[in-house]
């Protein structure tokens, strides 16, 4: 089922808006289109409010009730995700498309051992005996880099470090060998060293399982380290997309150019304290800004 000839995921003309508390309509995604081939890594870069998480949730069909899809469709292995029943969707989520959540501390249940939480995924999707599942969980814990899986199996999330919790949610995501992994800011809560370690782990697991990956981040270094292709989002639209080398070397959109300039301006090699960092003039906040900011504008910038 997860074997699709050429196109794994195709998003076409997707427009999503939210209705805020006071009835205002806010467009989070406008006419977004993208494609993903099997085994490919796509990086989606954008700053707060640009719609990148809405896009991830749209693919998972996990948008909140306040969200409304105005136009567009999302095809996964040829099937239109938007026309599937909740039951059919449930068989895809976690099994064929899996999400590596942003904050493992929040997405893990604090009162259930992590082994059991990985087991839950297997139980929901595969018909294995409890014995087989337990072996599988141990195997998964080993795969994500735990040296003594049996010690981790019974541990509770609070007993683990941030990096260890991240490994646990990655184990959950790859448990059913999905064809597509979506990592939403997979490393934003980690320090620099762990960030590159987790990036490597995710890349390596993805490659060995032959899964495609969408990595969503505001951190250009994360995307740069992992992606074959990149898409830059600004205010709900994809403003530039292409092969990573191409876009990074010859960015054409002013926003992409500015973001790359800023990212490259902070360097280990610079000569001590600098005068000023380059900035972007435009307010990077996206469609959510009218409500969040209540018309508040940056002053004198």
């Amino acid at each position, binding site marked *: 089922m997860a074997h699709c000839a050429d196109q794994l995921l195709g998003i076409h003309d997707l427009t999503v808006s939210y209705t805020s508390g006071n009835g205002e309509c806010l467009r989070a995604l406008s006419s977004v289109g993208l494609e993903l081939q099997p085994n490919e890594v796509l990086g989606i870069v954008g700053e707060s409010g640009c719609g990148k998480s809405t896009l991830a949730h749209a693919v998972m069909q996990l948008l909140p009730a306040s969200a409304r899809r105005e136009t567009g469709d999302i095809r996964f292995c040829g099937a239109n995700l938007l026309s599937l029943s909740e039951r059919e969707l449930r068989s895809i989520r976690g099994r064929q498309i899996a999400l590596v959540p942003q904050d493992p501390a929040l997405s893990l249940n604090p009162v259930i051992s992590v082994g059991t939480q990985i087991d839950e995924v297997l139980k929901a999707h595969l018909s294995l005996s409890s014995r087989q599942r337990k072996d599988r969980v141990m195997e998964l814990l080993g795969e994500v880099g735990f040296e003594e899986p049996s010690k981790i199996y019974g541990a509770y999330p609070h007993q683990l470090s941030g990096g260890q919790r991240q490994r646990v949610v990655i184990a959950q995501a790859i448990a059913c060998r999905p064809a597509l992994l979506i990592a939403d800011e997979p490393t934003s809560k980690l*320090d620099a060293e762990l960030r590159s370690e987790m990036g490597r782990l995710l890349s390596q697991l993805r490659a060995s399982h032959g899964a495609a990956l969408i990595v969503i981040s505001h951190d250009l*270094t994360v995307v740069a*380290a992992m992606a074959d292709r990149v898409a830059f989002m600004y205010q709900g639209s994809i403003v530039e997309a292409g092969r990573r080398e191409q876009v990074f070397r010859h960015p054409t959109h002013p926003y992409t150019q500015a973001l790359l300039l800023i990212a490259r301006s902070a360097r280990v090699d610079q000569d001590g304290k600098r005068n000023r960092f380059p900035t972007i003039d435009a307010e990077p906040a996206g469609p959510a800004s009218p409500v969040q*900011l209540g018309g508040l504008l*940056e002053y*004198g910038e």
Partner: protein
Amino acid sequence: MVNEGPRSSPAVLRVRGLSKRYTRGPLWQKRASFVAVNEVELEIGLGETLALVGSSGSGKSTVARCIAQLETLDSGQVWIDDRELTQLSARELLPFRSMVQMIFQDAATAMNPRFSAAEVIQEPLRIQGRSRSEQQEIAEALMKEVALSPDCLKRSVLEFSGGQKQRLAIARALAVRPRLLILDEALSGLDLSIRAQIANLLLDLQEAHSLAYLLISHDLAVVAGLADRIAVMSQGRIVEAGSVSTVLREPSHDETKKLVAATREAESKLAISAGASA
């Protein structure tokens, strides 16, 4: 905002032999003692930025909390100008508390969500017994200084974006005329463009008020652009210290080498070389 001119004593902050232990483990078992900070020494001068870097759990934030007197030290001394703080009573400590202000990573959780921007900035002034009109005046000036419109003073803190909340937190800290700002991952978690704006603001404020900064960060690239000197922590100790250019160019300790290598690796990907593939 800070006392005028360069001082005869160069160091705003001096820390000597700072150690801090915590006990951990379940209450019903024998609790193990754990050394979070071990014999740390550091100094920051007027208008100077010292960056404290290290991986998670190396003790950076504990050092900061000890300097701000939010923790009692197990041993060691903390000097602000010519006064040693650790032996002072709570009452004697009061004037020194305003001299050291902290800015945290998550500005949202550091502010009362029911407060307006005005209340956030004016609360410390009210506690210091300033008059209403004085409070108002200072709050307006501070909003301008951090590049927020004074018209927004009446707005709830919830109406500010992440970067604006961080500006507000900086304004609140400046309200009590500190000499030292402790920036505990204050630039982490912000969007790139916002991070650059806040970094610029911090540079401007430092120049205007000769503020001393203790910048705690795991992001060496930001550190390189903001700090004068750098101290690297590992397992509670400072393992390497010196000027930013020396330490980052020629790291000598393994921990520093590891941190620099991780940052360089990320940078090289960003600079992009042909044929590299994930």
